[in-house]
C-alpha cells in the first residue's frame, strides 16, 4: 500500500495516536474491512479487524481468506513505518511476504502487530504477526520492505 502523511506523525503518543486514527479513517478499503487501531508506538502499530461473512475464503469452514489477512498486515506495516521516530512523510510497500501458519478461527477478531525494526535513508524493514482471539501462536507472520520517504532537508 502507498500512503503519505502531510507531516510526520509527531513524537508524543497523543499526536501519534491521533494521526494514526485519521490515517486509517481516510482509507476506503480499511473502512470497508472495519479496521481499527489498537495501539501505536514508536515504529510499531497494532490494528485489528472483525470476522465477516464476506471475507470467508472457504464456506465449508468459515475461515477468513488469506487475502483479507494480507490487507490487515500490509496496513499495519504501513502504519508502523509512518510512526517511526524519524517521521517519514510517505511510504509504499515494495515487497511483503506472508507465511500462513494456521487457519484463523471463524467468528474471531484478527489482530496484527507490526514493527518497523530498521530504517535506512530510503528503505524501512517491517516484521508483523497476526493473531486470532485464541492467541495460541500466530495465524500468520509477515516480513516486508517499504519505501521510506524523508522530509526534504531531514538528515539521514
Amino acid at each position, binding site marked *: 500500500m502507498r500512503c503519505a502523511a502531510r507531516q510526520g506523525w509527531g513524537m508524543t503518543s497523543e499526536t501519534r495516536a491521533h494521526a494514526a486514527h485519521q490515517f486509517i479513517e481516510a*482509507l476506503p*478499503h480499511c473502512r470497508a474491512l472495519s479496521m481499527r487501531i489498537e495501539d501505536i508506538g514508536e515504529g510499531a502499530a497494532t490494528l485489528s479487524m472483525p470476522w465477516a461473512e464476506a471475507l*470467508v*475464503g472457504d464456506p465449508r469452514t468459515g475461515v477468513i481468506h488469506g*487475502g*483479507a489477512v494480507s490487507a490487515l498486515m500490509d496496513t499495519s506495516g504501513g502504519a508502523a513505518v509512518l510512526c517511526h521516530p524519524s517521521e517519514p512523510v510517505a511510504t509504499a*510497500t515494495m*515487497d511483503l511476504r*506472508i*507465511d500462513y501458519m494456521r487457519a484463523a478461527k471463524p467468528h474471531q477478531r484478527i489482530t496484527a502487530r507490526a514493527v518497523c525494526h530498521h530504517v535506512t535513508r530510503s528503505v524501512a524493514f517491517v516484521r508483523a504477526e497476526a493473531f486470532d482471539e485464541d492467541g495460541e501462536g500466530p495465524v500468520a507472520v509477515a516480513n516486508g520492505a517499504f519505501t521510506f520517504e524523508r522530509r526534504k532537508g531531514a538528515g539521514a
Partner: protein
Amino acid sequence: MKRPEPIQVVKQRRDAALRALIEGVPYIQYLGIEFDRRGDELTGVLHFDEKLIGNPALPALHGGVTAAFLEVTAIVTLSWAMLWDDLESGQLDAETLTFETLPRLPKTIDFSVDYLRSGLPRDAYARARLNRSGRRYASVHVEGWQDNRARLFAQATGHFLMPALTDGGA
C-alpha cells in the same frame, strides 16, 4: 475414431465447473473478481470499486487488495488445473457440480508479493503459471497488470498445500 463433442457441450461443461468453483467463495464475490476462460487458460479480472482504494489522495488500489487478487488468481488457477483432467474425462459431472461436491481448495503456505507500481483506480488482470504442481505441494507465480500486459503493477510467488484426494489418500 470417436466423434468430437459438440462445442456447446464442451463450453457448457467447462463454464459450469468454473462457476461452481468461483461462486462458492464469498471473498471472491466481495472483491468483485471474475475469471475469463480461453480453453484451459484463465485470466482473473478485478472489477474496480471504490472500496478497493487504499490511498484516496492518489488514488491507488490498497496493497492488500492487490495481494488478495493475486492470491485468489493463484488458488483458482491451481484448482482449475487440478479439476481439468477429471472434468474432461467425464469423471466429474459438471451438471451436478457445486462448490460442496468439488475437491477442497489448496491452502496457502506462503505468499510473497512484489509491488512494482501503484495500482490505478481501474480494472486489473492477473494470470498464474504453475511452476510446479505435485501431489502434495505446488509453487505458483502470478502476474498482475492493468492497461499494458507488459507493464506489470505487481507479481507474486506462493507455495500451496494441495487438498488430500477424495479417496482418502494423503
